């Protein structure tokens, strides 16, 4: 059994981004980044995985709704084999806000049996907001499982019609859709912060 995983929460724009982190063999880190409305920030995170069994579980949630500029750069370096990194960053961009994500996964030549997953998904609510996502994979080992997925999307019309057909007004349906979209990252937050996020939708 592993020791309990240290959990860190970083409120962007209020807390300084911690790190760089160096995870040795068997060490785990669960880190959640949160950017609430009203926050503009340019933050960089670096995590190195230095031995087998090292594990990074990174979550991120951003809500940018007026003229915020949120820029996030994450570098995950698998220097040794047999380590795992999971990244899931999701957020909603509205108004004239801009969000950008640069995500590098580096896998060293002898870091075999690496597992690295990176996901970044943004929901765009207005015509004048912008979101960019730049996944970068630099993989020099050949026996690895690495994947990345990135989407920029809008609220799904089928979901909306389904909810409205049940009598849920359009505004409330949109809110439920946003909760649905954010739910995998929302669930990482303590309850009080979940409430704060929901109130901001």
């Amino acid at each position: 059994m592993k020791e309990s995983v240290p959990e860190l929460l970083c409120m962007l724009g209020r807390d300084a981004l911690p790190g760089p982190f160096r995870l040795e063999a068997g060490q785990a880190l669960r880190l959640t980044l949160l950017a609430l409305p009203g926050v503009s920030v340019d933050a960089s995170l670096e995590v190195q995985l230095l031995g087998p069994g090292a594990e990074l579980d990174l979550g991120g949630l951003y809500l940018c709704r007026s003229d915020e500029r949120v820029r996030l750069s994450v570098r995950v370096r698998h220097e040794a084999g047999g380590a795992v990194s999971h990244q899931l960053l999701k957020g909603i961009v509205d108004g004239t806000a801009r969000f950008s994500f640069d995500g590098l996964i580096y896998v060293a030549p002898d870091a075999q049996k690496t597992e690295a997953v990176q996901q970044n998904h943004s929901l765009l609510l207005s015509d004048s907001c912008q979101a960019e996502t730049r996944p970068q994979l630099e993989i020099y080992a050949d026996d690895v499982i690495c994947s990345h997925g990135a989407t920029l999307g809008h609220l799904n019309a089928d979901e909306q019609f389904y909810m409205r057909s049940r009598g849920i007004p359009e505004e409330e349906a949109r809110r439920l859709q946003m909760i649905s979209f954010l739910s995998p990252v929302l669930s990482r937050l303590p309850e009080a912060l979940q409430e704060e996020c929901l109130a901001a939708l």
Partner: protein
Amino acid sequence: MSEYLLEINDLHASVSGKEILKGVSLCIAPGEVHAVMGPNGAGKSTLSAVLAGRPDYEVTAGTVLFRGRDLLALSPEERSWAGLFLSFQYPVEIPGVSITNFMKAAVNARRKARGLPELSAAEFLKLMKEKMALVQMKGEFARRELNVGFSGGEKKRNEIFQMAMIDPLFSILDETDSGLDVDALRIVADGVNALRSPEKAAIVITHYKRLLDYIRPDVVHILKEGRIVRTGGPELVEQIEKEGYEGIGA
């Protein structure tokens, strides 16, 4: 006030500029169940989508009166508040939203629209339990994410559960039988039959006789190429079962 609950008159509708409904007329009185049958592409699902107010479907001509009101002027949620319900052929999955939270939003929005206070937590739970029993859903069902990972049968039972929670005056069941095994079909049909009453009415859309063996229609319409080509009694169902849609209508 009209004797009919729903009056569709010469309804034309298009999807992406292509005309699908080419003049549909039918009237349904309280207490009646009408079956709409027809081959693939006849416009059956378009008819149900247009009645429920799907935004990307364009009505190009005709009128629809629901309890004497212009249904087409209402938003999808206003149609629901007025008493209309659509059971979807393909219910939508909404991860991260539990059935309980979804139904709470739906039930209370409808109550608000009628000027009623929200249900208390205890009243709501009691209602949930009662309606879940109707479609034989177990307690953990209430906590599941809406339609996520549901089998075909569970999705359709969930539609009938929602119908029971909402208690509509007029229901449209769009191919509620598709993808159901015999047991699920019976549960769904029993659920629908339990909700029949002299004030309520329904349209049952289906390809097959199977569902209509359980939910007996008063009137049967055959929809083909966007028009109703034949209207009759339950005996029409038998005729189609024997002869197919080929020989019917123009």
